[in-house]
């Protein structure tokens, strides 16, 4: 009976996750234009990607910048917000809702809003900078800073990280803080010696989730640059590059895109493995057990 109830989920996973997962792996060894049967070509795509595709490295580098920047922003800002919203302040529910709210707005709508906020001439951010005597930046027109615009935009989803941190903070027993206070620890010492060590499992979880998500950044870049990844390919992310080969170019190169997808999978897998492996050294669980 239990199997019957869970069967929709099992069917969903088999059809919409496992099957595409295996199929894309097999397709990565084929030439496949979607409308004709795939043709087996072995490792040719992988060879082309590493030797004959200048946009592969460029898109990977852009994505790396986004991953490094956005994960740092979300972890630091999310943790800071969670600390503030874990305190006993007035209208706590309202503040929590407000900070979480942008996370539930569809990314298409968010992208349009951010295009206005970061508009070089009439944008809200530049207007504020100009009002306090700072220069106006050409956020999405200057290749040197275009990716910074997307990093600023990534603060939109800090609410999700914040909520997970909040849950972690509420799981820390008050007794630890009471004991630290009796020992004379001030607020910063309590943060450093009690809160952060006990939050490492939550930090670990958030880093993993955010890294996996950030490597797949696509929609906002696709919408905000009309799919070009401009200017000068400065915001061409890895998944946008993959998407172009699959759906923008003619003939479609679904096999090549699948190979790109599997390389991305291996990169994400590598970072995940590194974090999981090193977690034994820096993640602390209550009761003294270290590591995952």
């Amino acid at each position, binding site marked *: 009976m239990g199997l019957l109830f869970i069967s929709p989920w099992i069917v969903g996973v088999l059809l919409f996750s496992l099957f595409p997962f295996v199929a894309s792996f097999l397709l990565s060894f084929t030439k496949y234009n979607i409308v004709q049967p795939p043709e087996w070509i072995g490792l040719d795509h992988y060879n082309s990607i590493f030797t004959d595709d200048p946009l592969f490295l460029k898109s990977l580098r852009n994505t790396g910048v986004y991953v490094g920047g956005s994960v740092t922003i979300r972890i630091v800002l999310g943790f800071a917000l969670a600390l503030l919203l874990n305190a006993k302040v007035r209208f706590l529910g309202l503040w929590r809702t407000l900070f979480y709210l942008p996370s539930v707005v569809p990314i298409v709508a968010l992208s349009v809003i951010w295009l206005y906020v970061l508009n070089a001439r009439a944008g809200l951010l530049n207007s504020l900078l100009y009002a306090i005597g700072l220069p106006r930046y050409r956020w999405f027109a200057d290749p040197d800073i275009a990716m910074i615009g997307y990093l600023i935009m990534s603060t939109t989803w800090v609410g999700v990280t914040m909520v997970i941190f909040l849950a972690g903070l509420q799981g820390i027993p008050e007794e630890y803080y009471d004991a630290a206070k009796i020992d004379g620890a001030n607020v910063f010492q309590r943060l450093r010696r009690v809160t952060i060590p006990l939050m490492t499992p939550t930090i670990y979880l958030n880093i993993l989730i955010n890294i996996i998500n950030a490597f797949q950044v696509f929609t906002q870049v696709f919408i905000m640059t009309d799919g070009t990844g401009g*200017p000068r390919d400065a915001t061409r992310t890895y998944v946008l590059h993959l998407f172009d080969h699959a759906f923008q170019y003619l003939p479609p190169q679904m096999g090549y895109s699948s190979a790109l997808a599997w390389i991305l999978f291996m990169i994400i897998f590598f970072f995940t493995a590194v974090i999981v492996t090193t977690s034994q050294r820096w993640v602390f669980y209550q009761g003294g057990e270290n590591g995952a």
Partner: protein
Amino acid sequence: MFKRSTLLLLTIVMLVAMLPLSMTVSAQNPDCEGDVTLTYWHHWGGNRIPLQEHQVAAFEDAHPGICVDNVFLPWDNRLQNLLAAIAAGNPPDVTMFGRQDLPFFAATESIIPLDDYMAADGVDPAIFHSSEFAGTQFNGKTWILPLPGGGAYNIVWYNTDHFAEAGIESFPQTWDEMLEAAETLRLGDGEFLERIGLNAQSTSGAGAFLTWLNANGGDWITPDLRTITINNEAGAQALEFMQAMAEINYGIEEVNAFWEMAGEFDQGPLIQGLVSMEINGSWTLFQVEAHAENLNYGVAPIPYGPNGSADRRGSAHGGWGYMVPKNAAHPDEAWKLVKWLTTEVEGDGACWFIQQQQRPSPLVECNGYEKDGVVHPRAEALLGVAALDYLVPVSPVQPEASQIINRMVEDVLFGDSSIEDALANAEAEIQALLDAFWEEYG
């Protein structure tokens, strides 16, 4: 963690926020009764949606027993949607189709040739302007029927008040005159623009570089679509012109930053007064009249370059058509709809739809600038511009080729490459793509 009222608020905000996601609009006439329902995809957004609905309703009235599910899809995702539908064996019966996408779909026979249907119904290719019909052919077969016209993509729409204020009495005819006029019309403080005379990167149809190359008498590809020919004097002069225009406008970064304020329809740069001259297609007429009826404007052909000539200005390139995908559920009825959308002159079909927008029709018998029996006062000027259009061929690898060309232009305008190197690299890159295509599909 959250109170019930907070959850309620969150739910409402989520629902409101999801509204912009509904970019796909499907409309089916509830009064239509029939055994066959055709699925029809198109990309006519904005103020053309009601025209589409009217045109489809007229088709249903004229063809009892056939109903149409009229689906508007965004242009950007057209290939993704179409390829996925064909691969899944569930394509629409009729879809609007970019002529630039034809070679691949025809070479793989993913769409149905229309020649037999045309012969059976007496649809003579001569009812279309020959340059329009040429874009429907591949390997000697007709795969799509054209609408709207692929010509008149590069009309210069200019603000006559700006010209009068600047003391410019006649519209520039050559690139040198255009550069001079653009500098006179540009407003700014040396670092930030207040108004652009002309943004040379913003054209339509073939894309900026191919537009200027064409106006300079250059051909980018041989007529057999097998050899790229941009690395020459005409190509270098086109890039030099674009570079000079960007410098007049304080550099490419400032142009792009300023251009972020421009949008479509009522947000168009000419309508907003951001530019004095805008190069855009014939559809601009409909948009100006809908959103800026008090704008004083003129129309002129695009100026020609040092290698060009006065009788070759704009570019007819690509364009749209309608086709029936392979595995369409109702191909015979689908053909009837294609015929209505592209050849109908009497009822509210092809000709009526184009006339409502006041733009060129591919049909010889249909004057697109005549609406409800009244010829538009600018019809003569617009048809005069269209007469100077020259056919710029579409390559079988056009999407990727266009991307490479855009990258080449950026390399030059951002100062990362010399004109000579940029042209040589782009030509070699596109040639390699072309060679691969013809090797596989030729």
